């Protein structure tokens, strides 16, 4: 059948010399550069440029509507003597620390509860996520009503229904009440993120470890400190970093509920930077406040990565 085709057909394709473009594309270094270009371009345009511009503006006296000239550290010098700025730094640190500690305590607790065998597990998990899914401004407006000086439902229940108090609580009118009210709102909003992330971490821990511990007669506290906590540490450090960053740079809750009042006692650095920069028109000073946030953010990130993700600690060992 095939005899007729045995004659070898000479196959002599002409090797075409590759064009300049093809040769260029064969060059590995060039190809790497080309493939990275879109990503690098996006990063440059949307991250590096705005950040660089922000830092540059911080050293100028730019106003909205007119350019500025380089003034060196003048903006920072003026902020150094500005009580409002230091108040904002204090409250930002207070807000971040207290809210993060509460979010982690309660979030971890919630994650542990959800990790048990409860009925309607998935439904409950979905409901838990609600505060985080609702747009921040909407929940902020809800809290704004709850904290209203005249129409607060909390005051109404305490005064008119239960009769435990005689006067309405002035949630947002006195500095410390306002500060704690905002921390409360932030914690309420932030717990789901922490809880769901930690829950995911909990579920990666092998049940056999707990079984072995049970056989060895470990108490539930020992199981938590010797198995759960160390194995959760890697994800905990990542979640902590994110949570600290989100809380530190929070804007919407504060701006929607108090606008930094009463008398600037609840300004975060982010809200103060906005108020000075955009409505106040002092772009340079606003940028300087925003730039002042960078060292804190870098420190927080470094702390999370280096302190919490040390291997020894993760494996239950002691620090050297």
């Amino acid at each position, binding site marked *: 059948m095939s005899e007729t085709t045995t004659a070898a057909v000479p196959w002599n394709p002409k090797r075409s010399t590759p064009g300049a473009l093809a040769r260029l594309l064969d060059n590995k270094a060039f190809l790497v550069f080309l493939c990275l270009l879109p990503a690098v371009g996006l990063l440059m345009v949307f991250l590096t440029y705005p950040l660089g511009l922000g830092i540059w503006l911080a050293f100028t006296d730019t106003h909205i509507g007119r350019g500025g000239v380089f003034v060196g550290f003048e903006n920072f010098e003026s902020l150094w003597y500005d009580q409002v700025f230091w108040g904002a730094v204090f409250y930002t640190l207070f807000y971040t620390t207290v809210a993060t500690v509460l979010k982690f305590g309660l979030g971890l607790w919630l994650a542990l509860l959800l990790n048990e065998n409860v009925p309607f597990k998935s439904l409950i998990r979905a409901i838990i996520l609600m505060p985080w899914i609702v747009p921040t401004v909407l929940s902020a407006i809800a809290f704004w009503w709850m904290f209203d000086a*005249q*129409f607060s439902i909390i005051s109404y229940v305490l005064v008119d229904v239960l009769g435990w108090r005689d006067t309405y609580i002035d949630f947002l009118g006195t500095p410390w009440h306002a500060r704690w009210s905002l921390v409360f709102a932030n914690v309420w909003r932030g717990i789901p993120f922490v809880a769901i992330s930690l829950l995911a971490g909990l579920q990666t821990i092998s049940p056999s470890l707990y079984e072995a511990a049970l056989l060895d007669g470990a108490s539930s506290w020992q199981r938590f400190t010797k198995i759960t906590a160390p194995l959760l540490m890697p994800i905990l450090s990542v979640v902590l970093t994110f949570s600290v960053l989100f809380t530190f740079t929070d804007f919407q809750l504060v701006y929607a509920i108090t606008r930094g009042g009463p008398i600037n006692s609840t300004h975060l650095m982010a809200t103060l930077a906005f108020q000075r920069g955009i409505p*106040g*028109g002092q772009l340079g000073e606003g940028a300087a406040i925003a730039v002042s946030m960078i060292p804190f953010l870098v420190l927080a990130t470094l702390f999370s990565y280096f302190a919490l993700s040390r291997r020894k600690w993760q494996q239950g060992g002691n620090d050297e």
Partner: protein
Amino acid sequence: MDRITRRGTLALGAGAMAATTIGAGGARAAIPVGNATPPRQPIENGATLRVLRPTKFVDADETIFRENTAKFTAQTGVQVRVDFAGWEDLRPQTAVAANTGAGPDVVVGWADDPHIYADKLLDMTEMAAYLGQKYGGWLALPQRFGKKWGTEQWISLPMGGTGAPCVYRISWAKEAGYDSIPTDHEGFLKLCQAMKKNGHPAGFALGNAVGDGNAYCNWLLWSHGGMVVDEAGKVAINSPQTIQALRYAKELYQTFIPGTLSWGDVNNNRAYAAGEIGVTQNGVSMYFSLKNDPRTAAVAEDTGMMRMPTGPAGKMAENVLLLNAMVFKHTRYPNAAKEYLRFMMEQEQYDPWLTGCGGYWSHPLAAYAQSAVWTSDPKLAVYRDTNTVEFWSGYKGPIGVASGSVAADYVVVQMFAAASSGQSTPEEAVREAERRTRRYYR
């Protein structure tokens, strides 16, 4: 955001209001006009315009503004697109238009905006002279904000202003022994004390409230003879008059409902509508929302509106938020843009707008005092003279970047809030305000 909320509360009765007030517009009173010929400015061929202005607060503001614009298009063939920006967004958008030289040709902005971009605007002197001659002259505040500081050159056309007189419950004031609002500070304090004793406290915003906070605190400062800077722009806030104003504010604060330190622009409206407070300061919008909602019509019936106690020499000392229209040099059709503004200010268009809004944007030209809106409801009369006020944001200094920044940073409001609440002594509060003001006026 507060603005939107307040508008939300207005929406209930806005439809009804539009119906009644536009009805009143039908029976327009004659506006006395002088003899004047409009400046000759032939509209360019194929001209189109983009206009930017703040969003409506009463429905009629937008509908009538759009109707008037459509009339202009019908008469001249110039296509005009009007964009409405949120009150807080207007300033940044104006800045972008000024800096990039693109975007809207005409911006109906806030009072001091044209002064920030003065060198980027078309000259309006001729137009202002024509309108002034025809309509009985410009009132004091529009003169202040229309002309470049210290010159007779007009850079913008003020279109209307909203003031903040005293709004109070007539029956509660009577119960306290007063038939009207006292014209002096001492009497006003006594009135508030007496009303508080009867369980009807006062409520003035001391929070970071663009409209109401500035209204109350600027009144306190000006009516006591205080000023932020002097004529030359030298910081002059640390004066015995300011200290006196702060002491007075502290006493008045004792008659307030709790929580005013956290009040934004909307809180006094809510508290007043709910009958929680008996005295506050507000624009005409609150009265309308009360009047048009059947549930609060009784409150509106019992509402009186009068001048706050006046300043030295009996001068009214209330804060006014002014609409100030400007045309950018970057427009390709300068004549069309100017003609558009002239058209909007002519009585055939302006009077229905003024009337439809129920006097919300009070007129800048004297002749419109004869408009039917001011007699349609006698209670509105106090808003008629809004623009005759001789005080301005940044009084007594030049209008510009610094005065705008001091207002936006709530320096004056926070000074009064700190002293009222007892967080600082009046002396400490004024020194802090002085330091912050210096920073802007360096």
